[in-house]
């Protein structure tokens, strides 16, 4: 077993790029729809909550409520983009489309594939986060440079949530179980992390809990209106990065181990029975 896992780890520092490029090529074909899709949900929240609640709330932490919310939406959309990319698109590539199976017949290892998928999901998180940031900046709810400062944190948010989702898809027996992760982990994150209201309004025990979830602080980092001086922001990003390096390393290791079984199972299970269905669908 142990030696099998060693063989499944990333083979070198650049193999994953081929996987990233494969996903990029597939994405290019549907880029416009994908970007619009990424924007729709957070923009609805932003305008619905921002204008609706904004009138009641007035200002938060010294900025308008809609600016406060814009920063939160950047983080949320990064989290959702990475989570969904991994949980649905990467899962399909692993289980139904046989993309991973094809890749595993080349000189790439499972670790290379996972690294490529994580990097890709993080890239999509950056795209989603930056898209919201740009809209917010155009509308005057965030200063332009704040988008640049936020990119590293957004990327790390994406990496962390992609890693978590990767563990989930490798352990969950089917699509139906993903909903537990979504409702029990991802959705509470929005409230635990000060996306729609500041953390200081939470009972102190919740504040501790939120502190433990590194993501909590991400919501605020992109908002330079209230993120404090630049060096504080850097320290902030650095702290997040440290947290995340741990999460990412652990999840690449953990995911390779757990996914290798899942992949084998899917690869073989899909064999005869599902094949007719798959072929007919042209998936």
């Amino acid at each position: 077993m142990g030696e099998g896992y060693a063989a499944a780890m990333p083979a070198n520092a650049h193999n994953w790029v081929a996987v990233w490029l494969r996903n990029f090529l597939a994405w290019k074909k549907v880029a416009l729809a994908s970007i619009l899709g990424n924007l729709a949900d957070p923009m609805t929240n932003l305008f619905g909550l921002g204008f609706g609640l904004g009138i009641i709330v007035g200002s938060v932490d010294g900025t308008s409520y809609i600016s406060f919310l814009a920063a939160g939406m950047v983080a949320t959309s990064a989290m959702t983009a990475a989570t969904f990319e991994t949980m649905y698109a990467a899962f399909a590539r692993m289980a139904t489309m046989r993309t991973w199976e094809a890749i595993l017949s080349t000189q790439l290892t499972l670790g290379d594939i996972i690294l490529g998928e994580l990097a890709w999901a993080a890239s999509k998180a950056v795209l989603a986060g930056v898209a919201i940031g740009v809209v917010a900046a155009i509308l005057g709810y965030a200063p332009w440079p704040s988008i640049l400062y936020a990119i590293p944190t957004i990327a790390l948010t994406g990496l962390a949530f992609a890693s978590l989702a990767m563990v989930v898809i490798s352990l969950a027996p089917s699509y139906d179980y993903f909903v537990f992760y979504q409702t029990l982990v991802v959705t509470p994150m929005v409230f635990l992390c000060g996306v729609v209201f500041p953390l200081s309004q939470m009972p102190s025990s919740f504040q501790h809990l939120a502190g433990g979830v590194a993501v909590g602080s991400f919501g605020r980092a992109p908002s330079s209106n209230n993120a404090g001086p630049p060096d504080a922001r850097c320290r902030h990003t650095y702290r997040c990065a440290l947290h995340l390096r741990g999460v990412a390393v652990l999840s690449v290791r953990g995911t390779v181990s757990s996914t290798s079984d899942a992949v084998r199972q899917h690869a073989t299970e899909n064999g005869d029975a599902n094949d007719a269905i798959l072929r007919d669908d042209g998936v």
Partner: protein
Amino acid sequence: MNNFFQPSMNMSTAAIDLAGVKKSFGDKLVVNELSFTVGRGECFGLLGPNGAGKSTIARMVLGMMSPDAGEIKVLDEPVPARARLARMRIGVVPQFDNLEVEFTVRENLLVFGRYFGMGARKIESIVPSLLEFARLESKAGTRVSELSGGMKRRLTLARALINDPHLLVMDEPTTGLDPHARHLIWERLRLLLARGKTILLTTHFMEEAERLCDRLCVLEDGIKIAEGKPHALIEEHIGCHVIEIYGGNPQELYALIRPYARHLEVSGETLFCYAPDPEQVLVRLRGRAGLRLMQRPPNLEDVFLRLTGREMEK
């Protein structure tokens, strides 16, 4: 042309070497104590019905699955420990197509070449020859979802050649294809063998095994029941003409022709009569109403029937 190889030759010339390999899923033993050696430049077949364990063996050879016991060496690398290094020099045609259906033919080759660390320019320089080999020159810009089954199979074959492999592992390369598409693939495979490639081919199609394989291993329920050159196996296990008899009462016919048959086998509605002197049998059956007779040379299907008492599913 590739018959020079003998299993007893120097081991370092072997492309694939399996020794005492076992694999179970749960309590189900799927591959049992399997050993065989494939020489370089040889076409070696794994012939057996569905569920015999052929795909499982192919997966273990590629290091995509670990054996429970036994040793596997592929292109001098121990598998699965160093399977990645072996796979650099292997081309794979999986049992079920796993092409990128949303991509064009050319994009499929580009993406796959990158998995082998090849640059875009290098890949583009070899794509024309691959397309020509696969007879897909006019389809470079076509999406895979618009290709016919035979074209998809040929693209999968072209894709497997992108890293200029020494060894090709092909899991049922022509299953599900119409006869024309199948013959085209066979012709391409013979060309590859002429170029010196080694092929491990699984099939449940005895005609394919007989036409392409230098040597083969007949499997049933994960157990090797025979191994050798196709014609040697046929000679050894059958060695005489076959008369297929349809219709009539098998028991009655059995008694009638028993003295002239070396061996008789009933399978479904058909009585297989293996007779050194077929005329003797035919004389006794001619003129009987309701019988259809067919005399033919023996083939691997007969070997399988002889060894297992049942026909291989078509």
